[in-house]
């Protein structure tokens, strides 16, 4: 089984700062992976390398059995059109939502199908309404992002990613920019998706959520996978000292 996504020897440097130092990972269809780690451990960079928001410095990304890019002198070479096509198959949800402020919620969600997939307007809008309903925002279709709460904006962003009918979803700290009282609605929405058997990778600081959400937990330390396993193993019975210390620091107030 080669999996829906495979990373081989993935490395990423920003200048002299090596953020990812050789990541090997295979993700099977339907897996839900929570990526944990201290800030600076490279977890967001790892996620962003999967859909090439960052271009890896070395290593390969293989999606559904096909390696992305071509081997060339001095590293792999990626054509913009190939990356654009790849990104239509991988949805991404950002920490800062990044909704398009000049479009209504409906237009935000319809934009991808309409202008990238070439779906007709009526069809794209019908689909957009379905996805907005799914994240519980059917009645906000005509609202502009500035009129929505952070939690609502993030749910629209999730609907926008879903509207592309992607093969996998990447969540980059989806609740970190939210007021505490708005975190719940977004986590509920994400949990709802996990019941549909979608392949998802999620970078988060919410350990409790990771426990309920994930089928596998990965703990990153200094750009390498330090420990991985089921949520039960990694979060309740960590084998590595660093993992244990990290979890200890994050559950001080759990009671």
């Amino acid at each position, binding site marked *: 089984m080669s999996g829906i996504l495979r990373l081989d020897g993935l490395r990423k440097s920003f200048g002299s700062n090596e953020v990812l130092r050789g990541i090997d990972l295979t993700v099977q269809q339907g897996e839900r992976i929570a990526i944990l780690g201290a800030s600076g451990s490279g977890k967001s960079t790892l996620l962003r390398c999967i*859909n090439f*928001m960052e271009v890896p410095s070395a290593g390969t990304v293989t999606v559904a059995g096909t390696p992305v890019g071509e081997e060339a002198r001095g590293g792999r070479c990626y054509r*913009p*059109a190939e990356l*654009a*096509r*790849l*990104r*239509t198959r*991988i*949805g*991404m949800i*950002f920490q*800062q*939502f*990044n*909704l*398009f*402020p*000049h479009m209504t919620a409906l237009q935000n969600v319809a*934009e*991808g199908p309409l*202008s*990238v997939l070439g779906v007709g307007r009526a069809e794209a809008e019908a689909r957009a309404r379905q996805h907005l309903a799914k994240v519980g925002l059917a009645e906000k279709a005509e609202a*502009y*992002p*500035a009129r929505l709460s952070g939690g609502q904006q993030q749910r629209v*962003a999730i609907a*926008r*990613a879903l509207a*592309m009918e992607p093969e996998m979803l990447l969540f980059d700290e989806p609740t970190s920019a939210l007021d505490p009282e708005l975190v719940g609605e977004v986590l509920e929405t994400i949990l709802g998706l996990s019941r549909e058997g979608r392949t998802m990778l999620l970078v988060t600081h919410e350990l409790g959520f990771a426990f309920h959400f994930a089928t596998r937990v990965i703990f990153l330390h200094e750009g390498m996978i330090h420990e991985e396993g089921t949520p039960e193993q990694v979060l309740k019975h960590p084998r590595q000292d660093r993992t244990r210390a990290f979890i200890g620091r994050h559950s001080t107030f759990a009671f």
Partner: protein
Amino acid sequence: MSYQWDFSPVWRNAGPLLEGLGNTLWLSGWSILLGLALGLGLALLRLSPSRIASVAALVVIEFYRNTPPLVHFFWIFFGLPILIGVSMSPFTAALLALSIQSGAFFAEIFRGGIVSIERGQWEAGRALGMSEARLMRRIILPQAVRRMIPPLMERSFELVKTTALAATLAYGELLYRAMVIASQTFRPLEIYTAVAVIFFSVLFLASLGMRRVEHVLRRGHR
């Protein structure tokens, strides 16, 4: 010392003056249009990943931003015929000089507007699989234009005043007509006062309109 103001030559020559104003506006309008097109082109070159294109655009922009417009007028009208044997009408020369010069300023406004759009917007578009061209057209420019419109209008007002330099090429715009009438009537003080009043009225009305537009823009989605 008491100067006897006499505005009757102005009223007698109202026809030619208004015709001059018409020419001023005609030259301004075309220069703005051509300047906007040139400016957008220069801005996109400036932002292109090609280093050569970017540096070439930068050289043009900085050259035209930092040299006096009168020199551009003379260079095109008197210089080109000598250098490469291309001579053109005063209107065409003025149009070229004005639109290239304002294109250089417009380019910086366009570029500034485009780069002012947050990184997250570019990433959100790319993450949906948009090509760079589509991203620019659907996501970046619609937002950037709202920020560009006030400085673009400001610069266009500047251009309208700069058209007066076309008088030096004997193009029959408002100032040139005024110079002719002043030399015939020996009433330069009154004639040039009238010119100032006409420019002021047109641009003041336009700036009232601009405030209205800015108000509408501010009322938008943000």
